[in-house]
């Protein structure tokens, strides 16, 4: 018996503040005007995507003590722009990245429950954590959280917001004009939470929203992050978009579900992925090379080398050889406000390896950064890209992808026009939305149904 075809889930990530976003292209539009968000969201909805995804960073990035100026800088407030997008879309899920360190559960729960009401059940929360004092300087408490407590706070934050979401059951509002009974329970919304990070009690003031709770995403990759996702998330925003890495990650995370009494389909795995489309595979390859050069200007190449060298390299020629000097491993890191720098755990070894590769291939600094940086995940004709995506999903390298175009706001258009119809023809992607909520799109049960199921099963 052949395995039934999996349905692919697709999402659109509004291009962000990394060098993957090519702002220098003549086609690139505003990253802040609402019209860009409307175009992007309506394209995703036209293509029947599951949801739109927004990342967040709560302090402008710095390098060498100065605001980093080579990438897109600036973005809107996540909740506010998602609420506005709910007005110009009907089905598209609205996923926002919200930090559990520099927020409080009562306020975040109010905002997600409100967004869920105002969108008719389309809200989702990508729960991220941070600890850095750098970002903390923008907030009342400053950098209050030790690094090793960030997941403990995130877990308790999420558990606490769930208690708030669940403090209303959905049947309290009678609004009986004849008898004058508005609520059937004077204590609706009551909660008490006593824990290591939060000691709060009172009454939550947003009644139960259509989805009960927002869909929960998690993006961390550490063992702790994976465990957090397996225990509490509905979906993972991962970075493993190749077949082998994707399968390894997929198997690892799905195998962690059983110990929390959860089944494989209760956690979707959705890697971030970029794409380049051309009329032919060869044309797409050419375009991909061009885009990589746009993404990595000489100035950008030097700055990326600084992540590893941890030194000011501005006097080097990006078209020349790599620095002879070794990375500075003594002090604080030259770059602040980005997660990427944590990837280089052994800068001396990385520098050694890069020098060897550059010498062997006769690469300049810029060539090296282009070659060692992230290549686009899917490059090819629409048919090739559709096939690759489908193959990955059917081979359990993921349940779908969160696609990030390199051009704002029109970069998704060609995917919507050329690739989606092919996936639909193959019967692996919806041609119409089947329900109104994001849970419907992702095939996730409503939390009340899940709770009822658990009661029956036990």
């Amino acid at each position, binding site marked *: 018996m052949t395995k039934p075809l999996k349905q692919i889930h697709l999402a659109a990530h509004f291009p962000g503040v990394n060098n993957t976003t090519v702002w220098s292209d003549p086609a690139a539009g505003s990253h802040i005007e*609402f019209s860009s968000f409307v175009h992007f969201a309506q394209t995703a909805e036209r293509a029947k995507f599951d949801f739109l995804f927004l990342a967040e960073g709560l302090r402008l990035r710095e390098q060498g003590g100065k605001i980093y100026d080579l990438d897109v800088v600036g973005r809107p407030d996540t909740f506010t722009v998602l609420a506005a997008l709910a*007005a110009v879309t009907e089905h598209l899920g609205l996923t926002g990245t919200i930090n559990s360190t520099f927020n409080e559960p009562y306020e975040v729960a*109010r*905002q997600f429950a409100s967004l869920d009401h105002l969108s008719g059940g389309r809200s989702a929360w990508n729960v991220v954590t941070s600890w850095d004092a750098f970002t903390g300087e923008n907030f009342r408490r*400053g950098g209050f959280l030790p690094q090793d407590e960030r997941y403990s706070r995130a877990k308790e934050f999420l558990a606490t917001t769930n208690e708030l979401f669940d403090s209303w059951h959905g049947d309290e509002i009678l609004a009986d004009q004849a008898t004058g009974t*508005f*609520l059937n329970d004077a204590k609706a919304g009551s909660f008490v939470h006593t824990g290591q990070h939060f000691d709060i009690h009172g009454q939550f*003031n*947003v009644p139960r929203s259509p989805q009960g709770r927002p869909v929960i995403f998690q993006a961390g990759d550490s063992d702790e992050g994976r465990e957090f996702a397996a225990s509490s998330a509905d979906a993972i925003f991962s970075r493993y978009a190749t077949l082998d890495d994707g399968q390894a990650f997929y198997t690892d995370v799905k195998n962690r579900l059983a110990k929390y009494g959860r089944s494989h389909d209760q956690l979707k795995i959705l890697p971030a992925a970029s794409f380049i489309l051309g009329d032919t595979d060869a044309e797409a390859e050419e375009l991909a090379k061009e885009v990589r050069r746009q993404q990595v200007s000489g100035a950008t190449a030097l700055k990326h080398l600084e992540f590893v060298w941890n030194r000011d390299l501005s006097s080097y020629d990006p078209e020349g050889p790599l620095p002879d000097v070794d990375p500075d491993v003594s002090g604080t890191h030259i770059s602040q406000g980005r997660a990427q720098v944590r990837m280089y755990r052994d800068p001396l070894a990385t520098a050694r390896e890069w020098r060897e590769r550059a010498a062997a291939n006769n690469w300049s600094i810029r060539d090296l950064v282009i070659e060692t940086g992230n290549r686009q995940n899917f490059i090819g004709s629409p048919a090739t890209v559709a096939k690759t995506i489908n193959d990955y999903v059917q081979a359990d390298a993921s349940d779908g992808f969160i696609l990030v175009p390199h051009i704002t706001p029109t970069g998704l258009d060609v995917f919507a026009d050329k690739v989606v119809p092919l996936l639909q023809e193959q019967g692996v992607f919806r041609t119409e939305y089947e329900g109104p909520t994001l849970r419907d799109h992702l095939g996730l049960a409503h939390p009340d149904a899940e709770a009822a199921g658990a009661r029956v099963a036990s």
Partner: protein
Amino acid sequence: MSPSSSLHLAVALDGTGWHPASWREPVARPRDLLTAGYWADLVAEAERGLLDFVTIEDGLGPQSSHFLDPDERTDQVRGRLDAVLIAARIAPLSRHIGLVPTAVVTHTEPFHLSKAIATLDYVSTGRAGLRVQITARPNEAAHFGRRTIPRIEAYDSPDTRDLVTDLFDETADYVEAVRRLWDSWEDDAEIRDVATGRFVDRDKLHYIDFEGRHFSVKGPSITPRPPQGQPLVTALAHDTVPYRLVARATDVGYVTPHAADQARAIVAEIRAEQAGAGRADELLHVFGDLVVFLDDDPAEAAARRDRLDALAGEPYTSDARIFAGTPAQLADLLVELQEAGLTGFRLRPAVLGHDLPAVTRGLVPELQRRGAFRRAYEADTLRGLLGLPRPANRYAAA
């Protein structure tokens, strides 16, 4: 400087209306309060009446008939949505009217609120405002668990005065931090200079380095300067301490005089504070708040008020004057209060489903006939409607 043009009108949206029994009127839609469509309809009606803006009430705890505590009543509207998000949800569906959500500053982050209102300004293309509010409720402090608000035992005690002064001082700091964050990007900071590879000119991004007694904020904002430069900041004030906040930090203050003499005195106090704060040449609006029951027959308005009071089981009282009468009578009163120095009014409809259309279809034409209200929207931004210029950026080199 006080404005001299025709009067300005806003309506305050809250649940089904300001009378606690308003939800029981057949015209009310109490089951729709948590839907976007309900708010969209209200704002569309207000916009049809060419109103300057709507405010949207909010709070960090259940609504209550008590000043300081939850009341556990089940016969009034309870539960609400976040006002900033309601405003954002409505913004793309409206074109001219200003959107002014309430935000409680006592337990929230200036950094988050600043970018939220800046974003509301983007999604409304220049129609955002903010009404700042304090909370002294101990139960709301317990929802956050970050600070304890001492219980107010007697309203005229020195402790109460100190607490209220402290909360308003913090609000002034909060508004200052929010305003600096809005200015932390100069308008032309985004340069997209392909030759040098620079997206922004970082010399035009500014650390705000705000340090106050309750918090400090480094900046810059993550959100570029909003279309209006400075979205509208507003506050409701009943006493000297909040009048000072209005005079020093806001663009519109809402006050609650019950007669023209009182209005004159309040306006004089605020204007004196305004001059003392060095803002004498800046336009600052002082709006009068009024609860309104409007019917073509004055007896019907009074009867409606009595009927709702009977349903509520007690007469409705308010910090603001309660007006029951005809649109023409209300127009007379507004003109009289305007002559006492108020520049506009924030009307609180007793029953939104009834009294909001009575404002837009009754009061507004009445004022237009007297030449006291606009006949078409004359500006693209909320500041523009209120005659406020787009301010220069405090960080930009002159």
